[in-house]
């Protein structure tokens, strides 16, 4: 048996119209997921930007405090190696503590920066944007002076972290003044610096909260450190 569906012209046109409408509808439906994704991304971006703008407004309202805090933190963690200032700080601390510096060795970190002193290069290390300068310090002095030296070093504004040390009794050389009253100390330490941020992508979230306890506590701690200003040694 032969079956044929012959539609009248009007019905055919109606069906055709329906098919076109359906096709257009399906085409639109296909574009919906990408549109929704675009919206979700834009909403996320907007949330980040709004938060960032709010934080910037807060910071802008306390520019002076923020700038002075930045200055303090840059003393503890400078923008470049500042080896001469580091030498000065070590020398001043040693002198104040009754120790005498016999040798200073530096391991300059960071491929782009050149050593700014004629010191030994022992190692180099870089982690999380913070550059590390390895130090080897040889000092002479007594046990109480060494204790004072460590305490002063730990409280110094340019943050230095002692990683190891060794001392042994040393014979005082005849006629030598100061310092050499018993111990010869060799210590390994690290000083740090962090290059200044010169560029940021606009969508990077700003997590700085100048009202947080962690922030205020850290600033207070760093402000309490003793500054050994660079200058001509007495």
């Amino acid at each position, binding site marked *: 048996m032969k079956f044929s569906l012959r539609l009248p012209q009007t019905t055919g046109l109606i069906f055709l119209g329906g098919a076109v409408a*359906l096709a257009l509808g399906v085409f639109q*439906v296909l574009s919906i997921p990408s549109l929704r994704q675009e*919206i979700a991304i834009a909403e996320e971006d907007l949330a980040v930007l709004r938060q960032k703008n709010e934080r*910037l407004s807060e910071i802008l309202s306390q520019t002076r405090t923020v700038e002075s*805090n930045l200055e303090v933190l840059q003393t503890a963690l400078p923008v470049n190696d500042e080896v001469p200032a580091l030498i000065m700080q070590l020398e001043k601390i040693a002198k104040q503590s009754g120790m005498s510096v016999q040798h200073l060795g530096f391991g300059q970190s960071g491929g782009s920066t050149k050593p700014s002193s004629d010191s030994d290069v022992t190692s180099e290390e870089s982690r999380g944007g913070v550059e590390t300068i390895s130090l080897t310090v040889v000092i002479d002095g007594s046990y109480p002076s060494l204790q004072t030296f460590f305490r002063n070093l730990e409280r110094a504004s340019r943050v230095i972290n002692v990683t190891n040390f*060794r001392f042994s009794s040393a014979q005082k050389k005849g006629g030598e003044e100061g310092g050499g009253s018993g111990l010869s100390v060799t210590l390994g330490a690290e000083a740090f610096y962090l290059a200044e941020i010169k560029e*940021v992508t606009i969508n990077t979230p*700003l997590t700085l909260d100048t009202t947080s306890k962690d922030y205020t506590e850290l600033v207070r701690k*760093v402000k309490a450190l003793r500054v050994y200003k660079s200058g001509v040694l007495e």
Partner: protein
Amino acid sequence: MPEDISLLPKEVEKKREQKARGRLLRKISFVALGLALLFATSVFVYSLILKSQSSDLEQAVNQQKSEISSRAEVELTAYDLNARVEALGKILGNKTYFSTLLTTVSRAVPGGVTVTEMTAPSEETASVSGTSGGYISLAKFLLNLKEAEVFPAVELRSVSLDEQTGEAKFDLSLSVAQGGLQK
């Protein structure tokens, strides 16, 4: 029984059937068209709403971006400060205070004991060598060290008596408590 006899010719009957089927098809096609139009229109309206939402968001994002750009200097200061806060937080949090080790050892040293050598290769261990006037003062030194919370383990590695001087030379190792040299 008499049979129903259709007087209409078969062709006329066929045409009637075709017309009825045509009407039905037309109805169905109208319904289908209506549904398709409704579907297409709703999807179109929905996508228009989404597009307008997207465009509003884009506008808002651009506005925020331009506001941020106008504060570029403050933005850089804020990021720099933030980076330094985070880095210093970590550095100071992990900083080793060897003065605590020196102070604890010096407090533990009794009369008659002299520390001549000390090595702390890391914040976890230290070794101390020295001389003692006798075994009793050395024992006191060991007891004092063991009482200190900073040293969970104190081990006397060697001790030898110098018969000429009467002094005992000792060498001991100290384990430093985790975080014991941090503040």
